[in-house]
Each structure stands twice: as structure tokens, then as C-alpha cells.
């Protein structure tokens, strides 16, 4: 798998640009998983995923280790996703205390949320962390490096999300 990526990247660099299609085919699902964790609209996700692949294509000549193409691609995907969030949040109201929660759950029913609902209600930035952690298997340190965030922030957000998900799981099991 790794070896194949290396061969493809080197072929593309040597001028066989059409071989890039194989790389797109192979990694599109992973890129879409990362992108979809923050972008709900399918058309937006599609645009963002295209941007990711085009950026990775432009950066190919600078890629130091061709066998690490996937890591490089996911880094771009995560950064683009984070940029997208930043662009969106700049338009939204920055004060969390004054923003309306999208759908205030009736009191008493809160504990009965399913995992789906919990994940849905998380801030998109946290969903991005969860996607990187559980789909791509990155560690706290790797995520922090990719997103250029303090490690402590990544850890505390993940940890809080996991607690909420665990609670939902236990309620559902009961």
C-alpha cells in the first residue's frame, strides 16, 4: 500500500500526471470522512475535497517522503476543514453565552440522547478531532501537530467528547 503510493507519486512527478487519478481513487473516502465531519452540505464537502486534492497535487514536488502521501493528504484535509470552520465562525456570533443552542432539548430528556445525537450536537471542531482520532487513528500529539493546536486543548476536547459519548452509550444499553 505504502509502496504503491510511493510508486504513483514518483510516476506523477516524472510527468505521468494521469496516474494521479489512482491516488484520488484510493484516498477520496478518507478525505471525504474528514471533510464531512465539519461540512454538512454535500456540495460544499465536494468542493472542499476537490480543493484538498488540488492542493496536494500542487504540493507534490515539495513532498519529502513520497511514501507518506496519505499523511500529507490528511494533513491538508484537516487544515482545510479547520480553515473552513474558522471562516464560518468569523461570520457567526463569537459570544457563546448569547448564542441560542440550535434545539434546546427538553429538561429531563437530555440523558436519553443517543450517540448519534451527541455526536451531532458536538461543535464541528470537536467532530473533526473525533474523525481524525477514530477514522484515521491519529494520536493526540499527531492531531495537535496537524492542526497546530496546543496538545492540551486537543486532549481535553477529545476527553470531554468521549465522556459524553460514553454516557449516551450506557443510557442506550440500559
Amino acid at each position, binding site marked *: 500500500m505504502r509502496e504503491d503510493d510511493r510508486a504513483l507519486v514518483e510516476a506523477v512527478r516524472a510527468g505521468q500526471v494521469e496516474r494521479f487519478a489512482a491516488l484520488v481513487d484510493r484516498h477520496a473516502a478518507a478525505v471525504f470522512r474528514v471533510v464531512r465531519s465539519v461540512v454538512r452540505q454535500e456540495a460544499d464537502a465536494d468542493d472542499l475535497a476537490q480543493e484538498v486534492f488540488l492542493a496536494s497535487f500542487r504540493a507534490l514536488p515539495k513532498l519529502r517522503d513520497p511514501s507518506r502521501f496519505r499523511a500529507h493528504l490528511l494533513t491538508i484535509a484537516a487544515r482545510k476543514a479547520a480553515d473552513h470552520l474558522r471562516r464560518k465562525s468569523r461570520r457567526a456570533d463569537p459570544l457563546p453565552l448569547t448564542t441560542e443552542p440550535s434545539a434546546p432539548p427538553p429538561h429531563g430528556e437530555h440523558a436519553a440522547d443517543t450517540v448519534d445525537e451527541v*455526536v451531532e450536537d458536538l461543535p464541528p471542531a470537536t467532530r473533526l478531532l473525533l474523525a481524525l482520532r*477514530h477514522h484515521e487513528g491519529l494520536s493526540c500529539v499527531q492531531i495537535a501537530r496537524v492542526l497546530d493546536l496546543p496538545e492540551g486543548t486537543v486532549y481535553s476536547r477529545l476527553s470531554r467528547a468521549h465522556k459524553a459519548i460514553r454516557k449516551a452509550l450506557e443510557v442506550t444499553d440500559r
Partner: protein
Amino acid sequence: MNCDEVRRWLALDLDGAAEPSADAAAHLERCAACRAEAGRLRSISAATRASLPPASTPPDFTERVMAHVLPPADDALDERARPRLRRWWPLLVPVLVPLLALAVWPLLSRRGPGAPKDTPLAPLAQASLGGAHVTALGPALVRDGELHGGAALLESGDDAAEIETPLGTIRLAPHSRGVARFGNTKEETMNARLAPAVLTLTLLAGHGSVATAQGDADAKPNRPVRIVKGNPPTIDAEALRAEVERIRALVQQVNEQLAAVTKQVAVAERTITDLIDSDRVRVAEDSINEAARAQLDDRLRLKVKLELAKQGELLKARDEEIARLRAELDAYKRRGDEIEAVDRVRADGEKLALASQLERARTLRQLIDRNRTRMRAICAAGGLPTQRQIEDLGKWYEELRELEALAIAKKQEDVARDAHSSIVRAYEYLAMATRLRELDAVRTYEVRPGDTLKSIAGARLGDAARADEILKANEGLDPDALRPGQRIRLPIAREEFEELRMRLAGEE
């Protein structure tokens, strides 16, 4: 590792913050309870994966990406191929034209390949036949080398010519011309075999002499036409051309008349058909209308009956519905009273919960302040914050974060604001105390057997010559009497360390 430590390690592992641990792995082998916990944590990971949006890659995604990546291929191809095409396509013409002719030929000839071949000649078209030059004056037809055509000018060259016609052979002496007329249309010409009298042949012999041949009513095919010689007037080329023009005009005129008549016939036929059709339609419509009227009467009567019956049923159903709704309304009223009571109880409960949260936030703040006072005293005395103090602060910090999140979710701004200021404070102390302990660890060195000041300076400061600095940093240290286990201060990050300790020891 004991169970507690393994549980902590497992939680860290879920968050992606644990180092790989052989100890933990060994413990999990032995301990079923911890294995179960590990399974639960794995299911959290799986449930999260399942709940995140799925990767739905559109089917044409790769093509669209590649469309941006690849150079515009079509244009490039065109640029390369066009000049080459321009150079060699004329070579195709001699090949294509006969092919095209072959393809079109069956359409023009109207007959299968085995039938006699017809070559229609348009007016003024020229052909070569039996050694004579033939110019069609009206629409003419050449079939299997015989002239069947309407009107044609025949000219022989240096040799005598023989032109086959259905009526017989026309012989032309060298250097003579003649006009042959068979009929005006193709049909007439085809019938020439049956009605040879249509043929009028005027021959202009070599030196202006005219021979006229009149076809016999009972002439047989392939028999020479009798040529009756007369006294010819001299005809010059001009007169001949005028004659050609006259004949051509005549042919055209008759053709036009025929077309007009054909058109009139077609119009008349259509009109007749229309008249007949409209009459039939009227008759049919009348009978249909009558039948429909009869049916309509029956249907109306039936409909009125049905409508009456339906209205009766509807009335009955409506009465029943009203009774049912009344009963339901009563039930709702009773239920409403119950809900109101429950709501009252719940509101009281929430007020209580809010009070207890506020209380807890205040308690935590006091705890943090007390912790801070103790830390200040320790640091002022030259000591370091204890691990226990740091852990407590961390615990309270987490609890406050949860309180704050809860308060924000429930829109209790008082509690949230209170908790937030405590969070800021706890975080500040926590950061300073943790950093101070880290610095201390970096600055302290425990002497091992065989160490000298120089070896320590080489290993920790990167330069054996800096042994002097170590000596300076440790007052009263005897460089020749180092004991294993003895703690030595290293001259690293001294300023940051002292400043932090001052800040922790001082007032804000």
C-alpha cells in the same frame, strides 16, 4: 500496574494520549474486569466512528479532480493534428467521389442492378452514343446504349454514326446533325415503342441538306427508320440554335402545364376527401350526442340518489365524531391538570439545583483560594508546590469546566460567569505550579557513582568546561567529595525559575 492505573491508562489510550505500555498489556491479560472496561472503551470508539458522517464519495469525483489536474487534452491534440489533416485530406477526394457516386447510384437509377440501365439526361446535358455526340434538348433518356429520350440534337464527327432507338437505328453520315424528338415526357418516351408515330426525326445532312424521317405507326423495333429525302432549305447555325431554343421553351412550357394540372388534381382530390369525411363525422357526432344525452339523464338520476344517501351517512358520522371529540376534550383537561402539577414540582427542583450549583462553584472557589494561600507560603519559604496541590487544582479545574458547560447549556449566566472566573484563576495557578516543578526537575541532578563535576557538566550542560558554573551555583559544594545520591543544582533556566517562584510566593 494496578487496576486503577490501568483504567487511567485505558482512558488516556482512548483519547489518543497514552504511550504504549507492556505493563498495561500484561495486566489486561490477567484481569477480566479491566478487559471488560477496555471493551467498553473500544465500543465508544466504534460508536463514534459509526455516528460521524459517512464518507460518500460521488461517483465522478476522480474525473472532476483530474479535469483540473490534466492539461486541456483536446486542444493539444487539435493543435498537433490539424496541419497534418490539412495536408492530406485532398488526397481522399479521388477515392471518396466515386464511392459517393456508387452509394447514390441505386437511388437515382430506380431499378435493380439486373434491369436495363437508364441514364437520364437533363436538358442540354451531353453524351456520346453510337459514335455521335448527343445533346439533350428536353429531358432525354439513354437506356442500355439506346436513345429513348424526348428531344436531342445528334451530331456525327469524321465518321458515320449509328444511334439505336426503340424505333430503329438512326444513321448519320459524317459531319451531319439532326434533331430527334420522341415525346415530351419520360412516360411518353417509354411508350414510344407502342406509339412510334410520336417520333419525328429531322436530319440535317452534311452540307445543309435536310432529311425527315417519320416513324411508322407499325414500325418494329430495331428496324432502320426510313429516311425521306426532301428539298432542304439552307439552315445556318443561328437558325438551328433558335430551333433548339424554341424546342427547349416548348418542353419547359408543357412541363409547367403538366405540373400545374397535377397540382390542381391533388387539391381537388383533397377537397373531395375532406367533404366526404366531414359529412361522416357529422353523422357519427349526432348519434353519439343522442346516446350521451340518454346516458347523462340516467347518470344524473343515479347521482342524486347517491348524493342523498351519502349526506345521510355523513350526518351520522359527524354526530359520532362530535361525541368522540367531547370525550377526548375531557380527557385532555384532566391530563392538563396533572401536567401543570408536575411542572410546578419540576420548577421547584430546578431552582434547588441552580442554588446547589452556585453553592458548589463558590465552594470550589474557596478551595482554590485556600490552595493558593498554602502554595504562596511554601514558595515564599523557598519550597515547591506539592504534587498533591497540583492534582487537586486539576480536579477542581475539570469540575468547574463541567459546571460551566452545564450552566451555559441551561442558560444560567450567573453560575457560568462565576465558574468562568474561577476557571481562569485555577488554570493560571495550575500552569505556574506545573511549570515550576518541571523546571525544578530539569535543574536538579542526582549524583551517580563515578560522577565528577566535569562529567556532569559535559553530560548535562554539553561542555565539561562549565564545571565552574555548577560550582558557583551550589554554595559550599566540595568538588572532590561528591556522594552518590547527592542533589546538585544545575545552572539552567535560573531566571525563569526564580521569577516563577517569586510570582507564586507574592501577591497578585
